[in-house]
C-alpha cells in the first residue's frame, strides 16, 4: 500500500505509556493534522515516525516497507532546535542540503530559490541567532523542504510568523500538496488545521480520541450555532436562545437543533425584520476538540 501507515504504535517512558496503540494512514498527497493537549503524545509520535526515538511496538511503513531514513526522503521542521544559532544561514542550509544528497550546485540554486520565495535573501550571510523568531522559522522550513522530500513533517510551522509570512507559508504548503507531497502537521491553531487538513487525529494522554476525514467528522455533528446579521435589535425574539455574542445587531446564538433555527427565521420574516445574514453553522473543530478532549481550548 502506498503512503504512510502507522499501526498500533506505542511508546512508554519511565513506566508511563505516552503513546498507546496509535494508528493512522496517509495514502494520498495531502495534509494530515495531529491535534492534542500538552503531553498528548503528538511530538513523541512524530519522533517515532522519524526514528529520532524508538517505538516499543507497532509498525511504521512507507509505501509498504518499514520506515528507514535511508529509503524515505524526509523533511522535518521541528517545533524548536532546528537551527544552529552560531552558524551562517547559507552554511547551515548547504550543510543539510549536501548531507541530504544534493550536489553543491543544486543546493546553491535551491537555497537561492527558497530564500527568494520566503523573502530571506538578505539574511543568508548572517548567523541564525541574529534573526527574528519568524525568520528563523522560515529558515527551519527551508531546511525541511530544500531537498524536495516526499514526506514532510511540520511541527508548529506557523509559530512566530506574522500574518504576511503566515500567508506566504500557507501558499507554499498548498503548492507542496499540489506537487504530490505527503504532509503531517501538528499545529496550535484549530483554524489552521481546518484550513489545510483532509484527515485529522486527536490525541489525549497518548490515546486516540477522534480520527478520520475532517469533512466526515464535521458532517456527523449537528449544527450548534446560528449567525444573524440584521438592521435592528431583535433581542425580543431571542429569549429562548443562549446568545454567545451580540454586537451592532450581529448575533451568534447557540442552538440545540436545526428546527429551532428555522422557527426563529420564520418568526423574523413574519415580523418583517430585514435579514442581511442568517447562517446555521456546524461546530468548529475547536468545539469538537473541546467536546472530545473535555479540556480547555488552549491546546498543546
Amino acid at each position, binding site marked *: 500500500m502506498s503512503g504512510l501507515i502507522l499501526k498500533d504504535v506505542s511508546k512508554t517512558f519511565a513506566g508511563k505509556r505516552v503513546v498507546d496503540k496509535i494508528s493512522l494512514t496517509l495514502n494520498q498527497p495531502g495534509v494530515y493534522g495531529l491535534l492534542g493537549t500538552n503531553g498528548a503524545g503528538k511530538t513523541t509520535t512524530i*519522533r517515532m515516525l522519524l*526514528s*529520532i*526515538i524508538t517505538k516499543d511496538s507497532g509498525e511504521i511503513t512507507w509505501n509498504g516497507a518499514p520506515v528507514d*531514513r535511508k529509503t524515505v526522503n*524526509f523533511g522535518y521542521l521541528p517545533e524548536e532546535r*532546528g537551527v*544552529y544559532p552560531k552558524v551562517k544561514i547559507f552554511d547551515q542550509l548547504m550543510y543539510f542540503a549536501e548531507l541530504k544528497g544534493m550536489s553543491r550546485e543544486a543546493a546553491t540554486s535551491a537555497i537561492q530559490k527558497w530564500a527568494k520565495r520566503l523573502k530571506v535573501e538578505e539574511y543568508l550571510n548572517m548567523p541564525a541567532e541574529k534573526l527574528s523568531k519568524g525568520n528563523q522559522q522560515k529558515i527551519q522550513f527551508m*531546511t525541511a523542504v530544500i531537498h524536495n522530500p516526499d514526506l514532510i513533517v511540520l511541527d508548529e510551522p506557523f509559530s512566530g510568523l506574522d500574518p504576511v509570512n503566515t500567508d506566504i507559508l500557507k501558499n507554499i504548503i498548498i503548492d507542496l500538496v499540489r506537487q504530490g507531497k505527503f504532509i503531517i502537521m501538528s499545529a496550535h491553531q484549530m483554524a489552521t488545521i481546518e484550513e489545510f487538513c483532509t484527515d485529522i487525529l486527536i490525541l489525549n494522554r497518548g490515546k486516540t480520541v477522534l480520527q478520520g476525514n475532517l469533512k466526515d467528522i464535521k458532517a456527523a455533528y449537528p449544527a450548534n450555532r446560528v449567525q444573524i446579521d440584521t438592521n435592528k435589535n431583535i433581542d425580543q425574539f431571542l429569549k429562548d436562545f443562549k446568545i454567545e455574542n451580540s454586537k451592532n445587531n450581529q448575533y451568534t446564538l447557540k442552538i440545540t437543533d436545526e428546527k429551532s433555527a428555522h422557527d426563529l427565521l420564520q418568526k423574523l420574516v413574519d415580523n418583517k425584520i430585514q435579514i442581511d445574514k442568517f447562517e446555521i453553522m456546524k461546530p468548529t473543530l475547536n468545539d469538537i476538540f473541546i467536546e472530545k478532549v473535555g479540556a480547555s481550548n488552549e491546546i498543546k
Partner: protein
Amino acid sequence: MLGKLLKYDLRAIYKPLSIFYGIVIGCTLLTQLFATINSDSFFIIFCKEFFKGAAIGFSIGAIINNAMNIWAYFRQNLYGDRGYLMHTLPISRNTLLASKFITATITSFTTIALGIACVLIVNGSTSETLTIIRDNFVTSLQIALVFYLEIIFVIQCGISGTIIGHRFNYNKIALSIAFGFGFFIIFNVITTAILLFWGYADPSMAWIFGSVVPPNANIEDAMHTAFNFASVIYIVYIAGLYALNTHLLKQGIDLD
C-alpha cells in the same frame, strides 16, 4: 555520504585545533629563533625558555582539545539539539559513527605528529634530533604508535561513555563521563593484570614493574615485545569499543 559527512566533521574539529596548531608552530619557530642568538642576556634566555614551554604546553593542550572537541561534537550531533535534524538525514548511524571515528584518527594523528615534532625541535637542534630518531627508529616508532593508539582508545572510551550514559540518564552528562572513565579504568586494569601475569611467566618482562630482571634477559627485546603487545591490545580495545558503539546505536536513540 560518508565523504560529505567527513568533510564537515573534519572542518568542525580542525577549526578550533587550527588555533592550537598556529600557536604551537609559532612558539616552536620563536624558540628556534631565540636559540640561534648567541647571547647570555636574561631576556633572550627567558624568551627561549618561555616559547619552548609554551610550545610543549600547547602541544599537550592540542591533544586534550582534540579529544574533548570530538566528545563534545559527537554528543552535540547525536544527542544534543543538533541531533533532531541529524537523525532525520539519510545517513545511517553506522556512517555517523564511522565518520566520527575516522575524524578522530586523522585529527589525533596530525595533532600528535605536530606535538612530537615540536617537542623534538624545541629540545635540541634538528640534526641531533634526527640522529636520535635514526638510531632508535623502531623504538621511537613503537612509542609514537602506542601513544597514538592510546589517544584513540581514550577518545573511544569517551564516545562509549556518552552512548551508554545517555541510555541511562538521557541528557545529563555526569553519567556519560563516569561510564567513559569507567571504561578507561577497567581496560587499563585488564592490561596491567595481563602484563603482571606475563611478568611472572617471563621474568624479562618484569622490567615494566621495576622488578629485578635476570642478568641474561634482553631488555631491548622485552621492550619491543611490550610495545607490540600494547599496540595490539589497544587495537583490540578500540575495535571492541567500536563494535559496542555500533551495536548500541543500532538499538536506537531516544532524544528527550
